[in-house]
């Protein structure tokens, strides 16, 4: 059987690896972006001079041939579902028995006036990074970033590494407050300003103005202000990359519509990762999941299903994610909404220096932990995964917090300060149990 995978990102590659591990099917991995799989999340580090492109490739180049995963560098323009064929950019056709579409996202553009000008771009692909190099090889006195998400803050950090003064236009009242609760959002907003960025909250892009050569000259904000700039980065999120499928019979809405087995409406065609949209997502999950980790899980489950002829459904464990905002790391386990649900309460602790915080969300009645956000603190994924599944209460989690720490050795611990505040706030008298690795082993193994 010949399995063709469109997209050599984390989803497609994970599927390919699991199929290969468990079967002898012929596998062809197609991408127009790069010859080899690279870590998209590491693009920023290439620009910042932390790594070179080849460092971002998780596998050495011999890996693919050794594992009999064929690679093709080309864009697929069409899926001929009737004949089970793909059309390449040069018109040639590729046969498939099963097709996995893992073609990722594209940057959102909302039809802003001037969004196609020279010097205006987004950041998602390897080609976008090359464009950024070109755009910043010219003189840039000031850059403007539009959008207050993860890519926006990454871009800000990138441009700062080249000493380009940057203005961030963020529609929200506080940074990323459509995802983060107020405490965390405020902490990050302060950190962005500490780095010297011109952060404009509650400010939107009105239009982008050109000079006489069709290059960006300035942006006009909705409040009427003009900001002179030579580079505008549009980072208002991403959406599934499906426009190339518009003539096919594969059913789409915002993304490629799939069931929990990643099956589309056409037999033998599957979609995973950023480009897929669940008709009926697992409980508590979104229709479209656009993070590294979900792409990896999609690929693993589909890969096993295809190789073993299983029909396992996507049934993920507790949500988790992570990011880094400039110098502050962020980890989250379970779900913390920007605003608590009706049956939820919060406990929030922030360190005196304003650079570390922990936010617990729990059920009002049972005090069962529903989710936790940590900033500037590393916590053990497997332990929180277990606690969330076991529906542990707040008291239990707080007492055993020391066992969950994943900070490097000799780091100052935060648990004592945290439990003091907890005891005060809830008029409790909890005491910390043993911290460290042996405490962790006891808890994870029981």
């Amino acid at each position, binding site marked *: 059987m010949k399995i063709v995978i469109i997209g050599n990102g*984390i989803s497609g590659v994970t599927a390919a690896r699991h199929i290969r591990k468990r079967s002898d099917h012929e596998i062809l991995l197609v991408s127009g972006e*790069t*010859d*080899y799989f690279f*870590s998209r*999340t*590491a693009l920023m*580090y*290439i620009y*910042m*001079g*932390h*790594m*070179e*492109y*080849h*460092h*971002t*490739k*998780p596998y*050495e180049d011999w890996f693919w041939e050794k594992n009999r995963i064929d690679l093709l560098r080309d864009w697929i323009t069409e899926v001929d579902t009737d004949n089970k064929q793909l059309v390449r950019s040069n018109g040639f056709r590729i046969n498939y028995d099963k097709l996995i579409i893992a073609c990722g996202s594209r940057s959102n553009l909302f039809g802003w006036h001037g969004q196609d000008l020279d010097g205006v771009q987004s950041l998602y692909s390897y080609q976008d990074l*090359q464009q950024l*190099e070109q755009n910043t*090889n010219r003189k840039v006195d000031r850059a403007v970033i539009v959008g207050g998400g993860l890519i926006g803050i990454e871009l800000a950090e990138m441009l700062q*590494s*080249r*000493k*380009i003064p940057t203005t961030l236009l963020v529609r929200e009242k506080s940074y990323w407050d459509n995802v983060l609760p107020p405490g965390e959002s405020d902490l990050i907003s302060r950190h962005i300003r*500490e*780095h010297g960025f011109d952060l404009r909250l509650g400010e939107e892009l009105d239009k982008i103005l050109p000079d006489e050569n069709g290059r960006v000259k300035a942006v006009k904000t909705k409040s009427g202000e003009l900001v002179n700039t030579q580079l505008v980065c549009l980072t208002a999120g991403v959406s599934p990359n499906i426009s190339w499928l518009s003539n096919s019979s594969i059913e789409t809405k915002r993304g490629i519509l799939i069931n929990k087995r990643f099956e589309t409406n056409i037999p033998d065609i599957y979609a995973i990762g950023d480009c897929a949209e669940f008709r009926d997502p697992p409980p508590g999950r979104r229709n479209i999941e656009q993070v*590294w*980790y979900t792409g*990896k*899980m999609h690929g*693993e489950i589909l890969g096993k299903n295809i190789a073993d002829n299983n029909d396992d459904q996507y049934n993920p*464990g*507790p949500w*988790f994610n*992570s*990011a*880094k905002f*400039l*110098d502050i*790391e962020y*980890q989250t386990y379970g779900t913390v909404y920007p605003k608590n649900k009706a049956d939820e309460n919060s406990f929030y602790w922030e360190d005196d220096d304003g650079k570390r915080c922990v936010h617990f969300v729990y059920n009002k009645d049972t005090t069962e932990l529903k989710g936790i956000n940590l900033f500037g603190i*590393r*916590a*053990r*994924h497997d332990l929180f*995964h277990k606690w969330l599944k076991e529906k542990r209460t707040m008291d239990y989690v707080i007492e055993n917090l020391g066992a969950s720490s*994943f*900070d*490097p*050795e*000799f*780091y*100052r611990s935060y648990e004592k300060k945290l439990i003091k505040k907890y005891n005060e706030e809830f008029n409790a008298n909890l005491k910390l149990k043993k911290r460290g*690795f*042996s405490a962790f*082993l006891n808890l994870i193994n029981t």
Partner: protein
Amino acid sequence: MGNSTNSLSIANSDGATLTARQRISLGLAVVGVFLIFLAWLSGNLFNTSNFLWPSLTLMTIGTLWFTYETYAHHPDGIKNNNLWFNSLTNRGTIGWITGILITAFYVCLYFFPSLLGYNPDGANISLIKMFDPISYMIKGEAASQWFVYGVLYTFAILIMGVKFIMKYRHNSYQIFRTISVMFFQFGFAFMLPEIMYTLNESLPYYDWKNMWPLNYYFFDSYNLDKMIDPGFKQSMDLSTIMNEKSGLIGLMMLVWGLLMIFVVSPILAFFFGKRWYCSWVCGCGGLAETAGDPFRHLSDKSLKAWKIERWMIHLVLVIVVIMTILTLYTYFSGSGKFLGVDTYWVRKVYGFLIGSIFAGVIGVGFYPLMGSRVWCRFGCPMAAILGIQQKYFSKFRITTNGSQCISCGNCSTYCEMGIDVRWYAQRGQDVVRASCVGCGICAAVCPRGVLKLENGPQDSRKLEMPEFTGIK
């Protein structure tokens, strides 16, 4: 390393430019280094001992000021911006020139000390003479090439150690570890032996933290003879040991040396892994972690390099064991031949090829080309022994945090030992590798909090890819 697809034009990245203050401070440090070269090349032209304090002062002030300008104006965090754009740190022209200069210095140091101005039969000139004032101050005699080397080596670890601490000031593990290597280099490797030598010239120059087989001359006849007082050796009389100071201290050196090899090291390696030595105590490691830090990312991460590494380092271990057995055979039997092989010749060849060329010339000279741990990774027999212990008899591992890895590659890039850390991290598997020196930089540069150095029950090390991917 793989092929880079290149099309990113990175030739003129503005970020690589320095501020005026950075330029001035760096300039001061460079003038200080230049004075050393001027002293070296000037032969008998100047009284180079006048260069000493101006040079050390300029290097100190310049480096500290540069450190301050580079790191103090930004919030705490990882500071690797533009490293791959900098000609010194990306194997560019400046990197090659630096590598060649250091290599040339080492070649002279080991094989042609007279070219550095060393004159055992009269007054030193040029570079060695430059350091006479410190040598007179500490031990009341003119400097030797090894004294100059010791001063420069220690100076580099101290000054660049301060820079390293400033760079990683948010990371307590890095701070403690660096203070430790600075302390052991300054106290144990430099001051203590010099002081003991001034107290009693008959004692061998003994670095109390150095250990066989890195210290391959420990079992040399002359070294054993110096440690075992001749009087004691002949009479085997307890009162001789008690009455003669040198005999007792010498014997202590021997006992301590043996204890280190057979007791202290295995126990510490069991509890903490190889890092207790390689990145907390060792002098080679000390230089690599401080002066070598700007080059750590230049190590080769390929599978091929790992294969070469395993062959080379264990071969050196086998050779040093054989060499030592032959040396001891000669010491006890008095015969210079073993099965027709000249034991002294074996020892000499080892000292030349491994001790001098590999550990010294290549080990440090190639920093700007192959990274800071070339010797530690491919050659050091001490690292080989500790590595075997670490892999099979140790509580140490680098834990991977669930499935939080995003395969970005920072960990692998900044591993000075060329371990492809990401390979493990993205599988959710613990890193248990013989070569890991436990520097902790992979954990520091990880943007998602995925790696942690820790010690725990040996059977809790996850050596297989676990099922846990956050799905079930």
